[in-house]
């Protein structure tokens, strides 16, 4: 489900800014690293973990905002390819920055003490933390969806995704809106990384692994569609697990074949809308 968080941010940026943000995976990774760092300083007891996770996500959100405001904005008039390559360059820079700051060894974050136990379900042992994350995923999705549907900012975002020229003509400060979109998307990515840190090792290279996965999810579900991303993440997860269980040699192949199939048959994804 954390893949959904990352993919949602990616989809958001694409829906509004029409750009595929390569650096999104790196934001995810930095979210994990920042949380690790905060945990090193503050520890995980007494609910601190949630604070650090939130802190990590906010830090990344701020980073995203700064990047958009001071760097990315300069490229708006130019070719989409340049914008795309900029996000790639960003991924390279930030990815290595993480290596510089935290080294190449794996880092781990302990689970919050409230959720260190495990549940025995159907003969399998599932850590409560994992269960919690599985439940949290849809909860965050719902919260995010509510924000999109009910708040002013959400309405503006949806409008910008549909027709940004008209929105600008109506007097909205589209520039500020873009920055907010970036901030929110980065928050989601960072949050994904922060929450995943107790479950998986934090290493450099997390970013390249996850970004391609996020691409697949977003393509399957539909670039720019919220529920599409949710659906895409579900399908991706199922295909991968199913594949690993029954056809281990073909599982990676299956995922990309699915991506190709969607693009061939219905390029705007299962729930997306055709781009003008």
């Amino acid at each position, binding site marked *: 489900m954390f893949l959904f968080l990352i993919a949602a941010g990616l989809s958001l940026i694409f829906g509004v800014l029409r750009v595929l943000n390569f650096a999104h995976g790196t934001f995810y990774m930095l979210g994990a690293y920042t949380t690790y760092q905060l945990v090193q300083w503050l520890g995980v007891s007494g609910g601190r973990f949630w604070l650090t996770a939130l802190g990590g996500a906010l830090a990344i959100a701020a980073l995203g905002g700064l990047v958009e405001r001071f760097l990315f904005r300069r490229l708006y008039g130019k070719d989409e390819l340049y914008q795309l*390559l900029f996000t790639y*360059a960003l991924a390279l820079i930030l990815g290595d920055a993480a290596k*510089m700051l935290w080294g190449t060894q794996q880092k781990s974050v302990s689970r919050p003490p409230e959720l260190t136990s495990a549940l025995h379900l159907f003969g399998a042992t599932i850590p409560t933390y994992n269960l919690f994350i599985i439940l949290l995923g849809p909860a965050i999705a719902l919260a995010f969806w509510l924000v999109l549907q009910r708040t002013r900012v959400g309405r503006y975002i949806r409008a910008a995704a549909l027709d940004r020229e008209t929105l600008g003509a109506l007097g909205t400060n589209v520039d500020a809106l873009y920055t907010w979109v970036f901030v929110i998307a980065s928050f989601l990515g960072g949050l994904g990384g922060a929450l995943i840190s107790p479950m998986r090792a934090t290493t450099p290279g997390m970013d390249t692994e996850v970004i391609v996965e996020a691409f697949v999810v977003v393509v399957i579900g539909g670039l720019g569609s919220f529920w599409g991303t949710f659906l895409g993440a579900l399908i991706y997860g199922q295909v991968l697990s199913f594949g690993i269980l029954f056809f281990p040699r073909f599982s990676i192949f299956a995922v990309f074949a699915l991506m*190709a199939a969607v*693009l061939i048959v219905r*390029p705007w994804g299962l729930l997306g809308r055709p781009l003008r």
Partner: protein
Amino acid sequence: MRRIPWALLVLLAALLVPAAGSRFYTFLANDVIIWALFATSLNLLVGYTGLVSFGHAAYFGIGAYTTGILMKKAALPFVLAFPAAGVLAGALALLFGTFCVRLTRIYFAMLTLAFAQIVWAICFKWNEVTGGEQGMPEVPYPDLAWMGSLPVLRDLRTSDHFYLLTVLLVALCLWILHRIVRSPFGRMLTTIRENAERAEFIGVHVRRYELAAFVLAGAFAGLAGGLFGIFNRGVFPDFAYWTKSSEVLIMTLLGGMGTFWGPSVGALALILLNQQIVSYTEYWPFVLGIILVVLLFGFPGGLAGAAELLGRRLWRPRRA
């Protein structure tokens, strides 16, 4: 300025590199030259037709595996295995391209990426044929004994012989690509890049031309791959991984997409830079990222574009 046959001089310089006697320089030059072909093939798509592909490494990889498998397992001679790389890569490009050209812009790019990852996944997992994750180390050199019998080349090593063969083959391929680009076909491609809608209205069947460009680009990338597999003394799945595609795309951009020689210059610049930087620091991606950012903000035309601007200020502009 334009009377000087630069291309010929560069070719001559390339042929003389082994004379310097340094294994390292020859190795570097060999690397640059193969990547120059790879990048130029991509430029046919990106720079001339305006189609940005994220999956060009797929054809590079196929070419490498084709030549590698034919020479190592089927013991076919190079003179057959090498063109086979181009043919197979071109055929695959025809298959994939048929689907890709139906899409535009970001969807096109995503599909090229998806197909490339499929190729990678197959190479990664098909242990019996491709050697799977381990790849195929020890791809043999072609039979270059005939070079040893020539007086001038007698004292050179096999790797030098192969280098010279590479220079000649790449020069031939680049010459062909140059002819294509300067032909009416090439001009039609630029009209598609500039304004596909208008191109349709002057009678250009846009999809067919795009597919043709895709196939040609793929075929030449395959040839580059065939050479690289031998040069690298082994063929590995990461030849088709998307990071290879991004490397070659960056080279094309760095050198300048708007010119024919831009990508080759980009290949030279990037490989030399990499060589230098890696000896000082392990943070090459960081440096590369910074270079890219500087490029994107300051020199969108790449090195060749900047050079052209400079050249235009120093010498008289050319007429139509």
